[in-house]
């Protein structure tokens, strides 16, 4: 009852500012169309038989066919393992970087972030080259015969490589915001270093740790690229199985059903992370990095921690070095002569694809950024009925695996009036709404730090909602805007799981191209394309940081965008 009354009042208030009302309406409509509708399409499809009749046969098959149940089990297993190991590594790294004076901090930081901006296949590629049966390390250095990296080991390794940096970024933010004077206070009353760590630092970082774990878990569940290369038939995983059911067995409804099954743990973890953990933040609201006290870490401990961090950094360097070198090797594993032909091939034949990818990324990135800021502004500063729902739906895509979204888009937009299949629009729209959550989240985080009186002051001086947003809010949330741009661009360039369903004869994407090259056995070309992609992404980050008047440094933006 009271909800309706409040809703009516809020609507009345909203009506006073018609432009704002229009914006709210527009946002709501686009979210329904491009986020909810595809998801619902998948859900509906999962309850259909191949002929299109209503049926529970897909879920029945899931419950009866052990292979599929194993897929769920394996995905959860890998997710949990990746989460644990990833958080462990990430915490140590974050702790070392924030609490000790490690040299070349910036360089290490950059190295840690590299895996995040690399396409999903490359770590698998590097792993194969290094740890496969004929791998440089397994065969060449360790002399192991017929070592199989496929299955659980391989997937876990590739995911740790890809997602430990995500945990690192989240935890770094947490540890930076923990007031070190708390640790000083503990030691001041007589606690030893270990005691201080166990009784003060660790407990205070627990919510952050749990948060990081869940984020990594969700990303691991949705990971499509690495399992595709390294899991193998004996180790089925849900994300790839959904894809394979559709493309291999040509069973769209079953694939949709598996996608729904994949959704459940994802959304659960997401809900826990947002609605339960958010309330237990022990970090300061302003989140300003406080100067770290290095008294907590003894000399011996420091050496251990630092070597650990350096080891991981070298690991990253090894992977990237392998790929970079692999791009210049004639035939990896057979003819190690240097050649430029892979790059030439990539740049000539692949030029179309590079161009297509850039167009899609360049179109979707700014729109995603602006829309994200707008929604953040509406959520934090305005009141209207359904606000909570809009916020929830807009970040829903973050918990939804790319495969599901890709399938959804195909199902939703293959008939009039929204016939978008095969067009540029479907790719752009997919990317805009898929990666908008980060923009929204960082926008909200930054907005909450801004004194609301500032926007009130603008209103007080005569500015309406839109003008306030344009002239006051937007400039002030530049750091968040920037990180949203960077994230959207990076993801648009490296996306595969949803994109693979949406490329067409006219519009192709680099990641799909790389997949094709890997599948065709042209490793050198795949590596060359990967190198080109990473270079483009790095350049873009630098350019974007210049354009958005360097309010936040290039790499800092990625870390803001990863803190969720």
């Amino acid at each position, binding site marked *: 009852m009271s909800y309706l009354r409040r809703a009516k009042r809020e609507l009345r208030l909203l009506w006073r500012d018609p432009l704002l009302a229009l914006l709210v309406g527009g946002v709501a409509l686009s979210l329904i169309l491009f986020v909810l509708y595809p998801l619902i399409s998948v859900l509906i499809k999962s309850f259909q038989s191949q002929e299109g009749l209503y049926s529970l046969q897909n879920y029945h098959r899931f419950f009866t066919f052990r292979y599929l149940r194993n897929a769920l089990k394996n995905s959860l297993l890998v997710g949990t393992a990746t989460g644990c190991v990833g958080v462990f590594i990430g915490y140590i790294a974050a702790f070392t970087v924030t609490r000790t004076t490690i040299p070349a901090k910036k360089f290490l930081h950059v190295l840690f972030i590299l895996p995040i901006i690399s396409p999903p296949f490359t770590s698998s590629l590097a792993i194969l080259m290094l740890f496969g049966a004929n791998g440089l390390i397994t065969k060449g250095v360790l002399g192991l015969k017929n070592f199989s990296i496929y299955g659980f080991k391989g997937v876990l390794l590739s995911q740790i490589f890809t997602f430990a940096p995500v945990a690192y970024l989240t935890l770094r933010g947490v540890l930076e915001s923990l007031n070190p004077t708390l640790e000083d206070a503990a030691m001041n009353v007589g606690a030893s270093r270990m005691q201080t760590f166990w009784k003060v630092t660790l407990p205070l970082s627990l919510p952050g740790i749990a948060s990081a774990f869940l984020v990594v878990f969700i990303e691991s569940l949705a990971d499509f690229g690495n399992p595709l290369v390294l899991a193998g038939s004996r180790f089925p995983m849900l994300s790839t199985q959904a894809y394979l059911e559709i493309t291999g067995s040509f069973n769209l409804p079953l694939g949709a059903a598996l996608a729904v099954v994949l959704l459940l743990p994802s959304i659960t973890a997401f809900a826990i992370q947002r609605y339960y953990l958010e309330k237990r933040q022990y970090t300061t609201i302003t989140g300003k990095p406080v100067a770290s006290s290095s008294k907590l870490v003894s000399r011996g401990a420091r050496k251990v921690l630092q070597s650990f961090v350096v080891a991981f950094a070298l690991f990253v360097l090894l992977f990237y070095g392998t790929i970079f070198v692999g791009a210049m090797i004639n035939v990896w594993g057979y003819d190690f002569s240097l050649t430029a032909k892979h790059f030439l091939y990539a740049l000539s034949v692949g030029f179309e694809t590079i161009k297509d990818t850039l167009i899609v990324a360049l179109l979707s990135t700014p729109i995603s950024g602006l829309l994200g800021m707008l929604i953040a502004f509406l959520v934090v500063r305005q009141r209207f009925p359904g606000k909570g729902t809009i916020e929830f739906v807009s970040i829903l895509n973050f918990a939804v695996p790319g495969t599901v979204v890709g399938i959804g888009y195909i199902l939703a937009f293959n008939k009039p009036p929204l016939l978008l299949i095969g067009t540029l629009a479907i790719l752009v729209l997919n990317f805009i709404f898929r990666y908008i959550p980060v923009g929204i989240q960082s926008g909200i985080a930054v907005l909450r730090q801004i004194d609301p009186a500032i926007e009130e002051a603008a209103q007080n001086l005569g*500015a309406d909602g839109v003008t306030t947003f344009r002239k006051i809010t937007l400039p002030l949330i530049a750091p968040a805007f920037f990180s949203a741009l960077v994230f959207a661009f990076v993801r648009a360039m490296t996306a595969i799981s949803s994109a693979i369903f949406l490329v067409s004869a006219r519009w192709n994407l680099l990641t799909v191209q790389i997949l094709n090259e890997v599948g065709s056995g042209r490793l050198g070309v795949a590596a060359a394309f990967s190198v080109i992609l990473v270079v483009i992404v790095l350049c873009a980050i630098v350019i974007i940081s210049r354009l958005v008047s360097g309010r936040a440094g290039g790499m800092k933006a990625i870390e803001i965008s990863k803190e969720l």
Partner: protein
Amino acid sequence: MELNINNLVKEFGSFDDPSNRVVAVDHVNLSVGEGELVTLLGPSGCGKTTLLRMIAGFEDPTSGDVFFGEERVNNVAPNQRNATMVFQSYAIFPHLNVYENIAFGLRLKKIKEKEIEEKMEQVIDLVGLTGLESRQPSQLSGGQQQRVALARAIVMEPALLLFDEPLSNLDAKLREQMRIEIRNLQKRLGITSVYVTHDQAEAMSISDRIVVMNKGRIVQIGTPFDLYARPANSFVAAFIGKVNFMPVRIKDKGCVQIGGATLQVTEMPSGCSVDDTLIAALRPESLIIGHITEESNIYDRGRIIRRTFLGTIIEYEIEVHNEYFSENLIVHTVNPMTPDLFEIGETVFIRCKEEAIHILCETPDLSNSR
């Protein structure tokens, strides 16, 4: 422009669960005349800020009306009320320099550039910020930021000027200085103003009238002198300045007994009768102390337990113990500029100035006396 507030109420909380409701502003009626500066004064949570925000339009009243002159503004959006506000945190736009900050509202009005320049020059001169136009907010001191906030509000030539504890972030000296400047500015421009603060010294020094609020209600409205000399109840008396409460017995028309002395008073509160014991509010400066001499036998005595040198005044705390009451009284004497001060432990006589006795219609808490 006149401001009229009629029976304004603001409730927070859910509508379904009455136990959850908080009444922040409870049926407030107030009129502010043209050019007047009225201060809303009270402790935290008394509703003064909520009231101010309702005037500005940032909160919607639960019931009641706000009138700007003849116009009822309840449904007018906050950006259309022309009631500019100086915020507690100044709310200066961090990404604009001083000039652009102040000119922000003007630019929105699409006034001609020439006119903007003129107004800007005037107001910048008025607040004393000449030469600082191109500075960034981060390069300004607290006092300078405050002036920017002030200038930004004034340059709009508003019908109403609102102040939300604008000086609370400044140090004491600056506060004193700024409040005088603000008052002078307001008087010069003649803009109707509503000022919110919890600092009673501030309120006293700048207001035409003060509105004392407590728990969402208006307790007393009056000039600073009225509130100080004739507080309506013990809350106001204690909130403003320092006060001594002493039990007083009504003897008969015009005569009361305080302590051992029977005195003539100039005013009696209505509704009281002979032999009632009420409370007298006595300001520290209305008590006189002196060395014991022969005549002092007619007065009460007390022992000095504390002496604090405050510059202009000396503050004494005196323990009084007799058959009528047992209190520690605060007495202020003007600094005699000679070493002739009372010592701690000394017994002195104490009497009050008759004309300064102000009787409240409240009964004393009996546990306190005797």
